[in-house]
C-alpha cells in the first residue's frame, strides 16, 4: 500500500471501510450516507458492502440523529455520525455542546461519549453563505470535545482510527475543497496521533501556523517566498482542541516571526487564540508583532472572484509575511 496516490475523499472512505471491518460496534449514520453514497461521495458503495444496519440513512433531523449517536455511544456502540456541513451542524449544537461535551464531567466520570462526528467545512466550491463557513473555533471553544481537522492524505486516512479509539467525543472537520485533492499516502497502516501539531515544511525565517485547507494556501505562499529568499516554516495544527502550544512555540523560538492563517473569521478566531498563546508564552522570542490572515468578515459570497477575495489566499499570506520583514528592517 505504501506510496499509493489517492484522493482525500478516497482516504476518508478507506478509513471508514477499515473501521467498519475492524469493529462490529462501529456504524455510520447521516443524511444521504447510504443510497446516495454521501453528499460528497465519501461513503459510495458502503451500503452494499456493510448493509442497512450499519450504513444508516437518516431523516433531515440533525439534532435527533446526532443525539442518537451520542445515545448509541452511551449504549456501547462506536457511532460515526456524518453531518453534511458545519453550517447544518448548528441544528445539532444543543446535543453536541449541552450533552456530548458535558456528560463525562457532569456524571463524575461514570459515562463517556465515544462518538465521532464528521462534518464538511469551509469554502472554495461557490456554495455561498449557508454551506461554506468555517466554524471550527466554536467547537474548539468547548471543554469536553476533541476537535481535529485532517489537511493531508495521511491524516485523512489515519485520524478516524485514532478518533474511534478515544473515549471522548471527537469532531472531525473535512475541508470541502480538499475532497478532490490527490496525494501520496505514505503508509495506510501507520498509526496516526489524534493530538499534536506537525511541522509540514521546515524553514528558518518565519512560521506560518495553520490548519485545514489553508495548509495548502500556505504551501503556495511559502514557494513564492522561497523565491525571495524567505524560508517559511509551516505548522499544521491538526488538532484544534486541544491545541499543541509546544510545537508552535518551538518554531517561533527558531524563526522569531509568525503569521497565523485561518479560514475562520478574524473576530474570536482560532487565530486569535493561537496568537495570544504565542504572546503569553513566547513574547520575548518575537522580532515582529504576531500577524494573522483570516477570512474577511463577510458571509462567504457566491461569485468566484468574491469568494476568493474573502478567503486567506496565498497572495495575502505573502504580503503579510513581507510586511513583517519590511516593518522591522
Amino acid at each position, binding site marked *: 500500500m505504501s506510496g499509493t496516490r489517492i484522493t482525500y475523499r478516497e482516504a476518508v472512505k478507506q478509513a471508514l471501510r477499515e473501521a467498519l471491518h475492524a469493529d462490529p460496534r462501529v456504524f455510520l449514520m447521516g443524511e444521504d450516507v447510504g443510497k446516495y453514497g454521501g453528499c460528497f461521495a465519501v461513503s459510495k458503495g458502503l451500503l452494499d458492502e456493510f448493509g442497512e444496519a450499519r450504513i444508516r440513512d437518516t*431523516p433531515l433531523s440533525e439534532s435527533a440523529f446526532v*443525539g442518537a449517536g451520542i445515545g448509541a455511544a452511551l449504549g456501547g456502540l462506536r457511532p460515526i455520525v456524518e453531518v453534511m456541513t458545519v453550517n447544518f451542524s448548528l441544528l445539532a449544537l444543543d446535543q453536541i455542546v449541552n450533552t456530548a461535551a458535558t456528560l463525562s464531567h457532569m456524571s463524575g*466520570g461514570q459515562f463517556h461519549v465515544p462518538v465521532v462526528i464528521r462534518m464538511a467545512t469551509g469554502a472554495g466550491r461557490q456554495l455561498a453563505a449557508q454551506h461554506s463557513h468555517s466554524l471550527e473555533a466554536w467547537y474548539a471553544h468547548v471543554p469536553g470535545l476533541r476537535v481535529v481537522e485532517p489537511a493531508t492524505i495521511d491524516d485523512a486516512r489515519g485520524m478516524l482510527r485514532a478518533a474511534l479509539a478515544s473515549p*471522548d467525543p471527537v469532531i472531525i472537520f473535512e475541508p470541502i475543497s480538499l475532497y478532490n485533492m490527490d496525494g501520496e499516502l505514505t503508509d495506510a497502516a501507520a498509526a496516526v496521533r489524534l493530538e499534536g501539531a506537525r511541522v509540514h515544511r521546515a524553514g528558518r525565517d518565519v512560521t506560518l501556523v495553520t490548519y485545514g485547507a489553508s495548509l495548502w494556501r500556505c504551501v503556495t505562499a511559502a514557494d513564492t517566498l522561497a523565491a525571495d529568499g524567505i524560508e517559511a516554516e509551516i505548522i499544521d495544527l491538526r488538532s484544534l482542541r486541544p491545541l499543541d502550544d509546544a510545537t508552535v512555540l518551538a518554531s517561533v523560538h527558531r524563526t522569531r516571526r509568525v503569521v497565523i492563517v485561518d479560514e475562520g473569521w478574524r473576530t474570536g478566531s482560532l487565530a486569535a487564540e493561537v496568537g495570544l498563546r504565542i504572546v503569553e508564552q513566547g513574547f520575548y522570542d518575537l522580532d515582529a508583532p504576531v500577524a494573522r490572515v483570516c477570512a474577511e468578515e463577510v458571509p462567504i459570497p457566491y461569485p468566484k472572484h468574491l469568494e476568493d477575495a474573502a478567503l486567506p489566499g496565498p497572495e495575502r499570506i505573502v504580503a503579510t509575511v513581507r510586511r513583517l520583514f519590511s516593518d522591522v528592517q
Partner: protein
Amino acid sequence: MSGLPEHLTREHGLRLLREMLRIRQFEDRCAELYGAGHIRGFLHLCDGEEAIAVGTMQALGRGDAIVSTYREHGHALARGVAMGPLMAELYGKQAGCSGGRGGSMHIFDAATRFYGGNGIVGGGLPLAVGLALAETLQGRNAVAACFFGEGAAAEGEFHESLNLAALWRLPVLFLCENNLYAMGTALARSESQTDIHAKAAAYAVRAAVVDGMDVFAVEAAVRSAAEHARAGQGPSLLEFRTYRLRAHSMFDAQLYRDKAEVEEWRQRGPLTTLTTRLKAAGLMTEDDFQRLQHEADAEVQAAVQFAADAPWEPVEDLARHVYAEEVRS
C-alpha cells in the same frame, strides 16, 4: 379513579406506597434543606407526580435504560439510585451519585442505567433513541424509557425523535408527564393541539393517555408499552395526566394558577388516594402505614447525615473528568 387491580397483593400494594412515601419524604426534606442553604441552584420537586415514577419503574427491568428530566429525584429513587448518594449530590458532595458535579438537575447512575436528569427541555429524547438503537444493534432485549414534560412537545427534538424511533422501530418508551404547565405557561397558551398523545399519530407511533395519578394505571400502561417494544413493534408514547402540587422551582411565586385548582388536584394526590384505597380494600392497616412512614423517615435521616458528613471535593480536582481519565492506580 378505578378500583384496585383484581390480583393486587398486599405486598405489591405496600411496595408501591413505600416507594412513593420515600420520594415524598425525601423531597419534603429537600425543600427544608433548600431553605437552610444546604441545597442550592435549581431544585424542582415532583410532589403530585410520584405515581408516574413508581409505576414506571415497577414495570421496567434492570437492563432497561432510563433518560430523565430536571425533575427527576422521584425517577431516580424509584429506579433504585441509593438515597444517600442522591442527597449528597444535592449537597454537591463528591460522594454524590454524579460525583457532586451535577446537582439536582443532573442525577446520573451507571449501576441502574440512569442516564441523567437533563437541564435542556427535550434534550434527552434523542439520547433515548440512540440508547434504544444500541440495544437493538447489539441484539439485546432492553428498552429505553424517556421522561419529558408536555412543554417538550413544543421542541423540535420531540418531533424528530418520535419520527426516528418509529422509522427504525426502536424500543423507546416516550413517557410524557403532562402536568399542564411548562414552568408558568399553561398548555393551552403554548400548544395548538393540547392532547399530546394525538401528536404521535403523525409519526405512526402507538399512543395512549393515562391517569398519571393512579399508580396502577401507570404500571399497566408502561408494562404494555414495554412488551410492545420488546416484541420489536417499536416505540410508544404515553401521556400521563398529572399535576405538580408544588411550585415549578424554589423561585416560583405561582402567579399563573389558582389556589383552588391546586387544591382540587391535591384531593387526587397519588399518595392520598393510594393510602385510602389500600385501607379500604383491607390490604393495609393504619399500623402498616405508620411503619412505612417511619421507615421512610429513617432512610431520609440517614441520607441527610451521609450527605452532611461527606467531605467536599478538593479544588485541585476541578478539571477531572472533562475528558475520560486513564485508569488510576
